[in-house]
């Protein structure tokens, strides 16, 4: 008997102002698997990610976590569900007005009433595991480099050991070395927590480092999905063009109205 997927999406659709951003997305991620979603900018990747943890409500379709449907759940149920998720955003989304230790332990302090001293200890322990100095905990996000901010965002996502981790372009804007370090931290964190991860990435080197499985989204549908090792022999021209970063190909020859729909964002 096949195991129930950790995350399962069926026919997920979302439209913004008449633009079809998701046109029926089907995806399945097994427990402790690492899925990376690739695709051109504006193709619906971030919207899909936000649908997964209830930040955006799809128009139709089904999203199941451990076989339990999450669409149609009330606010309180969604909040409980989100406690099983950790998420990092493309630009970190650290809270500017809070020092690093409060950023990292935000959920622990507000949802589990963790005290100040304990929270500082946990923040220090978590960020040192991610290769930052303990003294960073009293600094503010604006005082840190892009790479350090990404690590702090990662620390905030993993600090309460969630079952599911969502990463939105975790290496964007970083140099290749720092990007490689972040990838390694993601892989290590996933292994240590036994978490299921979904990552959005444009960085193919990063994809090869962290993915068990890859899915390419284009025009709001999953064009191809398969094992990461099979990415180069997918037989799908769009996947071939994207994976190899080719300027000429079906992705650059799409009609203008398709392009504008791809760019439609909430």
């Amino acid at each position, binding site marked *: 008997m096949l195991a129930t997927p950790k995350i399962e999406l069926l026919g997920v659709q979302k439209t913004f102002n008449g633009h079809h951003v998701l046109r029926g997305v089907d995806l399945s991620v097994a427990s402790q698997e690492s899925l990376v979603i690739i695709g051109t900018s504006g193709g619906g990747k971030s919207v899909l990610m936000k649908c997964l943890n*209830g*930040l955006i409500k799809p128009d139709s379709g089904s999203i199941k976590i451990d076989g339990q449907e999450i669409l149609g759940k009330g606010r309180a149920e969604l909040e409980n569900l989100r*406690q099983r*998720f950790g*998420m990092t*955003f493309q630009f970190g989304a650290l*809270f*500017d007005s809070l020092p690093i230790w409060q950023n990292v332990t935000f959920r622990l302090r*507000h949802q589990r009433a963790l005290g100040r001293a304990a929270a500082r200890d946990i923040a220090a322990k978590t960020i040192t595991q991610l290769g930052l100095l303990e003294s960073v905990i009293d600094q503010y996000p604006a005082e840190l480099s892009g790479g350090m901010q990404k690590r702090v965002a990662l620390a905030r996502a993993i600090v309460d050991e969630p079952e599911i981790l969502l990463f939105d372009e975790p290496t964007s804007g970083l140099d290749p070395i720092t990007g490689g370090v972040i990838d390694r931290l993601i892989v290590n964190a996933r292994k240590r927590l036994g978490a299921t991860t979904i990552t959005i990435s444009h960085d193919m080197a990063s994809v090869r480092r962290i993915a068990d499985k890859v899915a390419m989204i284009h025009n709001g549908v999953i064009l191809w999905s398969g094992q990461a090792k099979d990415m180069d022999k997918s037989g799908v021209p769009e996947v071939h063009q994207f994976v190899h970063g080719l300027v000429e190909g079906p992705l650059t020859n799409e009609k203008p109205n398709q392009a504008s729909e791809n760019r439609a964002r909430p």
Partner: protein
Amino acid sequence: MQGFVQNIGRTALDFLATLGRITLFSLTAIRWIFTPPYYWHQLLRQILDIGYYSLPVVGLTTLFSGMVLALQSYTGFARFSAEDTVATVVVLSVTRELGPVLAGLMVAGRIGASMAAEIGTMRVTDQIDALDTLSTRPMQYLVAPRLLAGTICLPFLVLVGDIIGVFGGYLVGVYRLGFNSSNYLARTLQYLEVSDVTLGLVKAAVFGFLIALMGCYHGYHSGRGAQGVGQATTNAVVSASILILISNYVVTTIFFGG
């Protein structure tokens, strides 16, 4: 002609839709003010920002307004030998009208803009979404403390502003216009009623709520990028200023009847 009518209709519908959105936004925020958990640290931070750090600007504004009011009313009343009423005019004008309106407009510029810019920046940098993912309701964490702090702090600011404004009038009356100090003070208190001060404080509470509401609403619904945040900031200040002037008339009318 048809296009003109259509435009009027569309504008009216847009206005009503915006009004509806703002009403829903404020009702939701008010609900969260009274619902645990309470974010005391956020509330204290806002009280400090609105109440304490706005004191200099409100104090300066009301001081010079009281001073100029004494000068101008002396010029007018001297024409029909009613100079004695200057102290009364200053205190009534400052407590009933100038104190709350000027403090409101100053705070709208300072706090309304900063709230819209801060929340707008949080919106465009995904910090508000991040709050949601951390199981914290943005309306409860960001908006409710600001609305409460605005409503609480403005009356205190206005009370201090009233005292400083009246003192400004006293300085000009005694040291520039030659009034006797004790006579001026006696005149200041002679016709002042508790309801004059109360009216000003009620207005201040309404203005404080509206300033915070406009700052939060426009920031929360900020467009993308720096331009979106800039537009949200402008909209917050302009709409708060207009609402202050409109609600000033409405509150005065309600109290005038009494």
